[in-house]
């Protein structure tokens, strides 16, 4: 019993770290122009560049957006050539149009608004100059307006030059980003699969374990001031600690009470909602960037272009996944874990300490999900919903590969990652490219419910 309270205390402590770090910090988060400009470390372009700038002087409450073509930079326009005559529309949280404006010669559009609310900026693609295509959605992430003053929208739309790349080139490029995305999903999916295998729990709070990695990295990077790599390392370690504490404080007592698996699944839904709301409470709903590696120039490798950080993400994920797979195949603990997931009762009667095996699975699984969150934060941005958005894709990957199998989770994730990124080339609307993967999930259950590598008996 004492251990349980200690575990709860540790879990609470890990969650409270950011609060303590924020206490002596300015509580107004992100959106301030100074922060988004300080985020620009590298001057070269990536396709998805942040197009917010600060030299404009609009007054009064409103949303200010500066639209530049980040792939067309020159000495005159170091951040990219401004795009003139593009219509931007601001939509409030109830979905009603607040107003629209056309960007001027400096690429600036200012839309006055009257109330504090969460706004979304929508770009009218028909008004883009010829030869310029959007990459990504034509809607910005929701922006929370906190002060009755100009709010600078972090508009993660990079207007890139519409070069007519050949289909082969596009395919190669999307395959590369699909593999990168698939590896991140695979880390989370392996974590989910380990926990599902040993405990049978379909963990709906798993997305928040991914988010935890991302937000902890943000805290140690921005509030404590560690370099991103160190902050990521600390985040993974703390994630592992959170996994241990979570098992000892919550799930182990439930297992001892003999709580049913479906009841535990619903508990995990409540736990997920709880964690998600706490993240939103501490970090607000705005999207944030780390201090380093936000924009990097891409190296040209012939048919594909990759930035340094993308190469690093692929390498780190590959090494971590390979390490876990080898450990699962070769070490005593790995064998014990596979034995427990095969048949817990038999494993227990063979003298294995099932509870400590499960505990290890939680630590390892949460650490891997945390690492997925760190890599996701480095790859794009930090948001309290980043993991929740990924959760269904992780479920899809695990189901596709076969619930509870390690290699299945790996193969499933790569397929899901590639489908998500390559889908738009084959007609999946690019603003909702996740839909392709979810449709594949539903279809695969029609023809092969046990997944690619799963065994028939597991589906009951």
């Amino acid at each position, binding site marked *: 019993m004492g251990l349980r309270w200690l575990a709860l205390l540790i879990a609470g402590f890990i969650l409270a770290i950011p609060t303590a770090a924020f*206490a002596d910090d300015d*509580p107004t988060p992100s959106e301030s122009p100074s922060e988004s400009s300080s985020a620009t470390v590298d001057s070269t372009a990536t396709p998805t560049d942040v197009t917010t700038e600060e030299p404009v002087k609009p007054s009064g409450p409103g949303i200010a957006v500066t639209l530049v073509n980040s792939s067309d930079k020159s000495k005159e326009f170091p951040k990219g050539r401004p795009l003139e005559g593009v219509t931007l529309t601001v*939509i409030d949280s*109830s*979905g*009603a*149009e607040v107003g629209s404006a056309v960007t001027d010669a400096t690429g600036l559009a200012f839309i006055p608004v009257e109330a504090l609310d969460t706004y*979304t900026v*929508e770009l009218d693609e028909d008004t883009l100059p010829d030869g310029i295509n959007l990459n990504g*959605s*034509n*809607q910005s992430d929701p922006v*929370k307006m*906190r002060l009755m003053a100009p709010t600078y929208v972090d508009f993660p739309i990079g207007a890139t030059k519409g070069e007519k790349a050949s289909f082969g080139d596009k395919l190669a490029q999307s395959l590369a980003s699909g593999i990168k995305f698939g590896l991140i999903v695979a880390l989370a999916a392996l974590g989910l699969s380990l926990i599902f295998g040993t405990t*049978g729990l*379909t963990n709906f709070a798993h997305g928040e374990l991914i988010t935890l990695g991302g937000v902890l990295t943000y805290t140690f990077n921005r509030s404590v001031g560690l370099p991103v790599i160190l902050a990521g390392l600390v985040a993974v370690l703390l994630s592992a600690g959170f996994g241990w504490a979570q098992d000892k404080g919550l799930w182990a007592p*439930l297992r001892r*009470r003999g*709580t*049913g*698996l*479906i*009841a535990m*699944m*619903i*508990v995990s*839904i*409540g*736990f*997920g*909602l*709880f*964690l*998600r*709301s*706490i993240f*939103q*409470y501490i970090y*607000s709903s705005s999207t944030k960037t780390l201090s380093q590696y936000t924009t990097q120039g891409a190296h040209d490798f012939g048919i594909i272009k990759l930035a340094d950080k993308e190469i690093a993400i692929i390498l780190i994920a590959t090494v971590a996944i390979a390490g876990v797979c080898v450990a699962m195949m070769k070490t005593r603990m790995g064998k014990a874990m596979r034995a427990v997931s095969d048949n817990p009762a038999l494993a227990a009667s063979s003298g294995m300490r099932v509870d400590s095996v499960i505990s290890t699975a939680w630590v390892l699984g949460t650490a891997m999900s945390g690492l997925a969150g760190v890599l996701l934060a480095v790859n794009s941005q930090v948001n309290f919903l980043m993991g929740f958005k990924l959760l*269904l894709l992780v*479920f*899809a990957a695990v*189901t596709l590969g076969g619930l509870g199998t390690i290699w299945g989770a790996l193969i499933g994730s790569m397929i899901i990652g590639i489908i998500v990124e390559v889908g738009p080339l084959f007609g999946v*609307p690019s*603003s*909702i490219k*996740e*839909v392709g993967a*979810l*449709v594949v*999930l*539903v279809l695969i*259950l*029609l023809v092969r*419910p046990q997944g690619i590598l799963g065994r028939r008996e597991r*589906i*009951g």
Partner: protein
Amino acid sequence: MDLMDVLRAALTQALGPNAIVFALAAIGLNIHFGYTGLLNFGQAGFMSVAAYGLAVTTVMADLPFWLGIVMSFLAPILLAIVLGVPTLRLRADYLAIVTIATAEILRLIFGSVEFKEQFGGSNGITGYAKTYKDMNPYSGELDLGILRFSKDDLWSVTVGWTLVALGCLLVWLLMRSPWGRVLRSIREDEDAVRSLGKNVFAYKMQALVLGGMFGGLAGLFLALKQASVVPSDYSTNITFFAYTALLIGGAARVLGPVVGSIIFWFLIAGLGSIFNQLTDGADPILPTWLMTDTQASLVRFIVTGLGLMLLMIYRPQGIFGDRREIAIDGR
């Protein structure tokens, strides 16, 4: 701190249109989860197809209002069949994953830019509710001091609680019939039912369709009472909140979802109002480094999450339920 205000906000929400939406959705989930043991995590999907069925038929296709209502009943039935065929033969958590995924697919498609012509994008669709509003017999608002409804809300409340009452009557009649007893025995032991020669798949499918229709009714009512259909109203959280409401009241009880929704909204609105007052004004009672007014609106979600966990751990049968009648031991 004005306790009267808190009470008024809580009561108005607990008896208002929002609680009705959740009561209807939770009645559907009760048929799925409470009586049959099906884990439908995509009730939001059923709600959205019904709401969009009405809105798209009436506004985008410019067909009569009543045809739209018919569409919003047909759409959830179709969705239930499409979902049920691949998953009802599998273990419970497969249905959970597929339904939650489908609800997200639908929400993303309804809100996407590419289908703006058909579904109105993230702004949604408005301008179909005139027929419904014109039927309003009330001429003024209702103000009982601690309970206050506008003219429109009063009409919605009348229609809504009538629907809930009829729904409860239907569920009560069905569940004491032989058909309802088969559903309960499927929840307890599927194989035993199968060995008695019952077609388990058909019964599960009927339950899925019926519960989905209640979900559709919830979506239709939501669309009518707020006169607009917006994709963000049909997020996964709605399903989870409906489950919370159901579990508060007690699954596998006719009135469980209704009482649960009333209590859920009473607590949610009451908490919201309390923390709103605590953080309101120039010199709030709670210091701003601890809680700002935007953070105050999140407290209720934190409490909901925690409440759902504790409820499931310590009293899974809710207020009225019977512990022996809860389908929580499957694998």
